[in-house]
């Protein structure tokens, strides 16, 4: 377990971070650009020194202002994958990978062998090459391999896929997904993209303007208004952790189950029983006062309005509570809201088109 509780002031900007990261889980630091995410993990790595507070990983004190402890970067055993690969240009891929491998082996070796890691990352054919002979995706894979081979006790990932195209970033994300099951150390991912979050995050630390505004399992934090405001105009919506219940191959549909019921979605490539995150955009949710009959919408969920937020001219956001306690956001016009006489406490039905939930709304 890593526990973080510190403050750092840079000019007029103050970063104040309090959260915990669990071994074997991916903790995402999510927020807008400039929210202080990179400064935060630089503090964890020891590249930036906090002003007050403490940082402890697995019983080892990285930083403690009161006891004047500030462990040197090279002694913290952090695996840090930066936004840009930062490979040593004069060293071969193999020499890059082995740069940190001289450290006394402790934890990773026991869980992932060198050979297996090279296989997983597809690095065998690249070993003798120099970094400038690699593509962007290959470089980032080497950087990831290099960080892991240094036998870290915590893995820090600073927007590792933001510079890559869709296909390359998808590759890296599925590798991270595989890694989670194998690595029993805290993994911290900095990102500003909700897609990355849905793919690999287990826990979410929401950061806005230097403050941690919410922490917890992804699906819980995703219901918070703070998350909605970071997602912005187009992205606002809800995220649910669901389980694949069955596939209806003839209808080309899958049924996903969550606390508030079942949801039909276009057929997903996932095994029955598998867990995935589903994102439902607020603009894909319609509202009815009575349960509609003879309608094309496959997903009709009973809900209660718990909050009404003005959005922009003529539009409003409704925060709905589903039977299982989940939060669903819906965006409708102010006119519909007044026509339907929607107030806090109204019982309504939330209508969700199944086709709106096709990829990339559903991500493992």
């Amino acid at each position, binding site marked *: 377990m890593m526990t973080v509780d510190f403050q750092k002031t840079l000019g007029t900007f103050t970063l104040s971070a309090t959260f915990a990261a669990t071994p074997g889980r991916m903790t995402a630091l999510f927020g807008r650009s400039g929210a202080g995410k990179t400064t935060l993990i630089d503090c964890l790595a020891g*590249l930036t020194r906090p002003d007050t507070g403490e940082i402890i990983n697995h019983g080892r004190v990285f930083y403690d202002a009161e006891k004047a402890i500030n462990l040197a970067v090279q002694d913290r055993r952090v695996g840090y994958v930066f936004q840009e690969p930062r490979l040593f240009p004069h060293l071969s891929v193999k020499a890059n990978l082995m740069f940190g491998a001289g*450290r006394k082996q402790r934890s990773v070796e026991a869980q992932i062998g060198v050979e297996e890691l090279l296989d997983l990352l597809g690095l065998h054919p690249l070993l003798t090459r120099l970094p400038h002979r690699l593509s962007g995706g290959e470089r980032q894979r080497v950087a990831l391999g290099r960080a892991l081979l240094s036998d870290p006790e915590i893995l820090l990932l600073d927007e590792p896929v933001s510079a890559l195209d869709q296909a390359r970033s998808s590759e890296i994300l599925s590798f991270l997904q595989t890694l989670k099951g194998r690595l029993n150390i805290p993994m911290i991912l900095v990102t500003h993209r909700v897609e990355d979050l849905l793919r690999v995050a287990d826990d979410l630390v929401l950061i806005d303007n230097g403050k941690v505004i919410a922490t917890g399992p992804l699906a819980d934090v995703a219901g918070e208004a703070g998350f909605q405001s970071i997602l912005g105009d187009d992205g606002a919506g809800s995220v649910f952790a669901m389980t694949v219940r069955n596939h209806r191959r003839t209808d080309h549909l899958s049924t996903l189950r969550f606390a508030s019921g079942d949801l039909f979605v276009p057929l997903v490539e996932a095994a029955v029983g598998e867990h995935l995150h589903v994102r439902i955009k607020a603009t894909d949710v319609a509202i009815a006062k009575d349960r509609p009959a003879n309608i094309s919408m496959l997903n009709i969920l009973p809900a209660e309005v718990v909050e009404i937020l003005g959005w922009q001219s003529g539009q409003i956001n409704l925060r709905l509570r589903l039977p299982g306690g989940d939060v669903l956001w819906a965006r409708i016009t102010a006119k519909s809201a007044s026509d339907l006489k929607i107030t806090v406490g109204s019982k309504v039905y939330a209508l969700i088109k199944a086709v709106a939930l096709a990829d990339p709304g559903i991500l493992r």
Partner: protein
Amino acid sequence: MTDGLLTSFETAALWLSVKVAFWAVGLSLPLAFTVAYILARGQFYGHGILNAVVHLPLVLPPVVVGYGLLLLFARGGPVGSWLQENFDVSLAFTWQAAAIASAVMAFPLMVRAIRMSIEAIEPGLEAAARTLGASAWRIYLTVILPLSLPGILTGTVLGFARSLGEFGATITFAANIPGQTQTLPLALFSVAESPGNEVAAARLAIIGVVLALAALLASEVLARRLARRLGRQERYSP
């Protein structure tokens, strides 16, 4: 009188020049690298002053530098008397003095070239090396030093060329003694001073040109190899 292609007078001047340049560059290179690193990466009070002092020989008349060295190293001078007392050595008017004069004159050129190379190294690489557990020394040896090789090469060639051509500081500090401190430019100066020696002067001039060309070509070949290895497009020759 003739020794194959060259006269013994020319051979003496040529070898003395090479020896002086070699020692001048060899002695100042480690210090030039250290100063370049401090200037490139250090943030401290007096950064500007250090930078100015390093560049002083570039803007001062060489005679002033030579005279300053003479004052320092002369028998009564602060460094000269210390050397005399502790080692019974007097440097003024020896080939070592010529090497020191060349080293001082070449120093700013070497620092500049190496500093540019160090500044071109992505600063993130050092942070990455630290997260991988590398000590400051290991980073210096395995990251900074190899990546500044292009600058070290350029600096060495520039320093070598500057030493070969050094005149004012050398003649002031080391004097013009044939076989001892008479390097190529000094020999050329002596020969050209007396009338009727046009051929001898031209021969010395040609030797100087050939020597400089050889150094430049050698550095070009090395620079290309380095650039290819690092996958860079730029050329590092001066």
